[in-house]
């Protein structure tokens, strides 16, 4: 697979944002309209005690992702009230067109004491074509459970046939390390299904094999169907030292599946890498893939987790070298 980078397409510091947000355009996610592409992202304000609060904003592009038509200047979705799961930020928000409805799956953040935060996945709908979103309740639709004890987030939802599929992230571990000033966390990609997009059944297993080690952190799954196969992009990093050490920071990972059950990790064929220099030279993270007018695009963040905006890439070559060979080896292994 080969992606051609189109460069950074949005720099948040060039625009005035609502809610006192001034930097960051994280986890860009597209909703395609007839005449434009709307890209939702999370930006940040600093609250009274100097901590960040993430808010959702959007920017509308022409359908070639070249020209900005408008940038939102209103509150797209309210943060939760006192004690709510999404009191301290919404990041990211995944938006899905479902016939004539628009669904949003939010990751809501709330601050804790012994560890920095927890998160759960909320649900909202839009009655005004994706301009604003209203939550269906004060609580989340997906939260912690016996074996997924914390940090539920990064939902990506698609409907295949009559079933809604959600790929998401769940935490497995909080721990201390001499190199980190505060506890670090580990999280993995999981999968859930639903008949209505609201009531979810977790599959209850780690979907994507670790590559680095068992502490590998996997985030932001995004799934697309083409060439008769499902393709899952995500980002992954080392648990420790990822903020300041280039080689330990986020990269884009890749897996494919024929049946939405068996996923074969195949990072060698991801086809997109950090640049030599510039805004995406230290890390690549928070990928989002989508179809638009016969092309397949990837939106993604670069250095400092999207502090300086997001970029886009277009898929040029869908060939997976050695894909079939690996697929058969894997299936043979699974049969034994």
């Amino acid at each position, binding site marked *: 697979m080969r992606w051609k980078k189109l460069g950074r397409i949005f720099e948040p510091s060039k625009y005035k944002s609502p809610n006192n947000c001034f930097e960051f355009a994280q986890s860009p996610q597209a909703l395609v309209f007839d005449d434009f592409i709307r890209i939702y992202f999370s930006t940040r304000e600093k609250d009274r005690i100097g901590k960040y609060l993430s808010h959702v904003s959007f920017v509308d592009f022409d359908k070639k992702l070249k020209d900005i038509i408008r940038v939102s200047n209103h509150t797209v979705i309210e943060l939760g*009230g*006192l*004690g*709510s*799961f999404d*009191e*301290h930020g919404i990041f990211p928000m995944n938006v899905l067109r479902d016939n004539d409805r628009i669904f949003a799956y939010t990751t809501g953040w*709330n*601050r*804790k*004491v*012994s*560890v920095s935060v*927890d998160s*759960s996945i909320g*649900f909202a709908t839009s009655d005004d074509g994706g301009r604003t979103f209203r939550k*269906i*309740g*004060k*609580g*989340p*639709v997906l*939260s*912690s*459970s*016996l*074996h*997924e*004890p*914390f940090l539920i987030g990064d939902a990506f939802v698609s409907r295949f046939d009559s079933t809604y599929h959600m790929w998401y992230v769940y*935490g497995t571990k*909080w*721990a*201390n390390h001499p190199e980190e000033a505060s*506890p670090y*966390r580990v999280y993995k990609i999981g999968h859930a299904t639903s008949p209505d997009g*609201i009531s979810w059944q977790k599959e209850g297993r780690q979907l994507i094999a670790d590559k680095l080690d068992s502490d590998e952190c996997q985030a932001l799954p995004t799934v697309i169907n083409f060439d008769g196969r499902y393709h899952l992009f995500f980002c992954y990093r080392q648990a420790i030292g990822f903020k300041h050490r280039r080689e330990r920071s986020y990269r884009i990972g890749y897996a494919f599946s024929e049946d939405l059950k068996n996923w074969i990790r195949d990072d060698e064929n991801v086809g997109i890498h950090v640049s030599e220099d510039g805004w995406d030279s230290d890390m690549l993270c928070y990928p989002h893939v989508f179809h638009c007018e016969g092309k397949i695009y990837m939106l993604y963040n670069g250095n400092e987790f999207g502090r300086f905006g997001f970029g886009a890439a277009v898929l040029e070559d869908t060939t997976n070298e050695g894909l079939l060979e690996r697929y058969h080896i894997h299936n043979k292994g699974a049969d034994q």
Partner: protein
Amino acid sequence: MFKWRKLGRIFNPQDVKGRDWLKEFAQAPSVLVFDNFVRVYFSCRPLPDKNGQYISYSAFVDLNRNNLFEIVNIAKKPILALGELGTFDEFGTYPVSVIRNGNEILAYYGGWTRCESIPFTVAIGAAISRDQGETFTKLGKGPILSCNIHDPFVLSGPKVRRFNDRWFLWYVAGTKWLENDGKPEAVYKIRMASSSDGLKWSRNGEDLIENKIEENECQASPDVFYYGKKYHMFFCYKYSLNFRNSDRGYRIGYAVSEDMVRWVRDDRKAGIDISEDGWDSESISYPHVFQLDRSVYMLYLGNQVGRFGFGLAELESYTSS
């Protein structure tokens, strides 16, 4: 109409020696009856830390079945470990409700963690004992009942029962946090979940018990028992703010149901109130009703929500109407 005769305080945690994790409080009593003794589970606390913050454990005391005022054994250590860093029960396991399931005993408990904008949140965990309830192993690092659309805040106070082969879990669900000038207080109501196996629970988030004293009335300890062909629920309720003042603290309420879904509240029929003086003169709370041999008993907490232990009352009379 129930009428209870108070028999007195049965356990005072401040009398216990040699257990630094059991210094104060004996909260939310619930029983498991054995051949020769009655095991009363409760939740307790070591002394607070230097910031005045508590953690809580759960433990048990065994009472002579023939003389409930005779303590025959006290747990040597907590029945459940606190959770690991970042888990829902890192700072407390309170309260606990147990039930026999074949040779095993299942426990459901409130797991406490600390938050920044609110003092804490709670979710319901589950654990299993294979040594007759001496120690329990958690079913997982996470909760079995966590927040959802209908139950967005604290989920606590589980009370598990089985009627007609179906499992029921009455619990307490936070419905809002009140700002209260920077010292947030939770409002919580009684709700119910049901299950065919005790593991996978369904719930609809409906409040079961109508409010009496105020819209923000806090309701806890939904203790259901079947007696005289009806389901009876004793619970406790208080004002949401300034409840540490005795007039606004916990009292015991009562509701009755034919089907466990529709409940009719009538606190006048509870038949138990605070005493004139003594350890239960300011508030009474966390009722737990159980039948033993030919009597019906209620365990309950006195002043400061069990800081000074729990007492026992015996049912003197019951008339259905």
